[in-house]
């Protein structure tokens, strides 16, 4: 077995351990994905909820607020991520104190993902039957309780679905961030595999990323199945 691995994946074995090795890269990718997913998730849910409740037919309509938030979300969603990485540098330095490495990648990843997720959250919550919202209002629930007990509860399967989608697209972004100094599997594939013509490294990086994607998709699908009645 070890012989086979050595024969077909010589560069993977050579690059397995150490600061620039696969093990580190995998951890870096996981770190970038989940830490930024956490922050983008929180920001996205808050923004998404605000978009839903302040819309004209929401539970607390607010025309101006909705107008500007809507525009802002669109604006940030429109910036290509690779440009965002460069433009946002000073802001990144201000927040996490560095612009390179996995931690330096967190800020652009969060800024790039949160608006996307906010839109997904909005779409998920708008799907919640307005009749159920009305029933909750008729029962005498406050807007805050309607958000937590009705929107987030009824919209949960859809939120998990869009959360899964968001994390998967986030993994794609971590690969890009990696290539410009963030580390991780993307960096591995490009700066080792591609630039040094060590194709086995590129392929194995890709496989690791695919495995990660499948695991996340599987967990998401399972959770949705459990929750939907």
């Amino acid at each position, binding site marked *: 077995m070890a012989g086979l691995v050595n024969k077909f994946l010589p560069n993977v074995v050579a690059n397995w351990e150490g600061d620039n090795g696969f093990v580190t890269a995998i951890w870096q990718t996981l770190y970038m994905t989940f830490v930024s997913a956490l922050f983008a998730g929180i920001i996205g849910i808050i923004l998404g909820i605000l978009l839903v409740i302040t819309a004209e037919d929401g539970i607390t309509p607010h025309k101006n607020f909705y107008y500007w938030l809507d525009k802002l979300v669109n604006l940030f969603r429109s910036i290509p991520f690779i440009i965002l990485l460069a433009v946002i540098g000073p802001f990144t330095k201000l927040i996490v104190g560095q612009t390179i490495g996995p931690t330096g990648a967190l800020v652009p990843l969060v800024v790039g993902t949160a608006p996307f997720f906010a839109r997904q959250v909005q779409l998920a919550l708008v799907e919640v*039957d307005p*009749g*159920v919202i*009305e*029933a*909750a*209002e*008729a*029962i*005498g*629930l*406050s807007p805050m*309780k309607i958000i937590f*007990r*009705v929107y987030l*509860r*009824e919209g*949960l399967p859809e939120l998990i679905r869009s959360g899964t989608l968001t994390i998967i697209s986030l993994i794609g972004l971590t690969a890009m961030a990696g290539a410009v100094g963030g580390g991780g599997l993307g960096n591995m594939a490009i700066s080792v595999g591609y630039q040094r013509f060590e194709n086995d490294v590129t392929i194995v990086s890709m496989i690791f990323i695919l495995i990660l994607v499948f695991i996340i998709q599987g967990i998401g699908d399972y959770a949705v199945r459990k*929750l939907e*009645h």
Partner: protein
Amino acid sequence: MAEQNGIIQLKNIDVTFHNEGKTIEAVKDVSIDVKKGDVFGVIGYSGAGKSTLVRVINLLQKPTAGSVVVNNQNMLQLSQKDLRSARRNIGMIFQHFNLMNSLTVYGNVDFPLRDSGLSKSERKQKIDRLLDIVGLADRAKNYPSQLSGGQKQRVAIARALANDPEILISDEATSALDPKTTTEILDLLGRLNKELGITIVIITHEMDAIKQICNRVSVMENGRLIEEGDLLSIFGNPKEQLTKDFVNTSTHIGSVLDEIRDSGIVNKLSGRLIELNYIGDSTNEPIVVELYKRFKVEANILFSNIERLQNTTVGIMLFALTGDDDKVEEAIQYLNGLKVNVKEISLKKEGK
């Protein structure tokens, strides 16, 4: 004093929507006064403004003008917090049930009780009793998606009753149900009215639903309330054309007349066609026999419908009178003298 004031008093309600430069007057100058213990029906076609009007009661819809007094409380002056607690006294059920899909039947009934301050075991007791009332005790652990429409509406009724409201608003609650289930749900509502003394406001486009449980009826058309009265007077003696249409649809006389017109029987019919409407005692008199005995006029009955509404008989009869012209005239005079509504119908002129 309080007894004389209605439990729901809407005065001069206007509701106007502005939509993309267009102004829509959904409700125009409507006043209703619902007494405690009433089953108050609002009937009208879709778009008449019924749903908008009843939503004004619990301020799900803010009126553009007018006053809303429920339980002697001026709803429009309440703070948000007080409004929310006032809403707990007004249960509401909907056409599409509006249950939480993520909660079980039990969870749905528990939903309004979470802020009630009751302990978990008190809540359980209450939920079990409510599910018992609506006949779904064995379905507590099911999710709404596993229930039929009628069962879903029963869950919604249990949920609406959870905070012991004095008022229950039913917004087309039976419109999505089949006729048998509709009857069952209406029976249940009628029972709640009698047993719990709960005041019910029903909106519907079906006269049959009104007939089954309401004691008072309002008819709405184009945002206006065009006719109002107790069930018997509306049913036995409708004044506005729309009200007549609803009554005719319900008694089927409308379709019978259409059929007579279309089928060509018209040409074979001799004599004069009379429609009789009667309420109460006059039904006991053998009108047809009497007509023959007194005037030698034969009454050929084409259609007859008799119903019991609130323990009173309401009947409608359609017959052709044949005999000597002057005798027929006398017979009609005689009928006019009875406590019945007589209307001569001319089929040939009313072209269709």
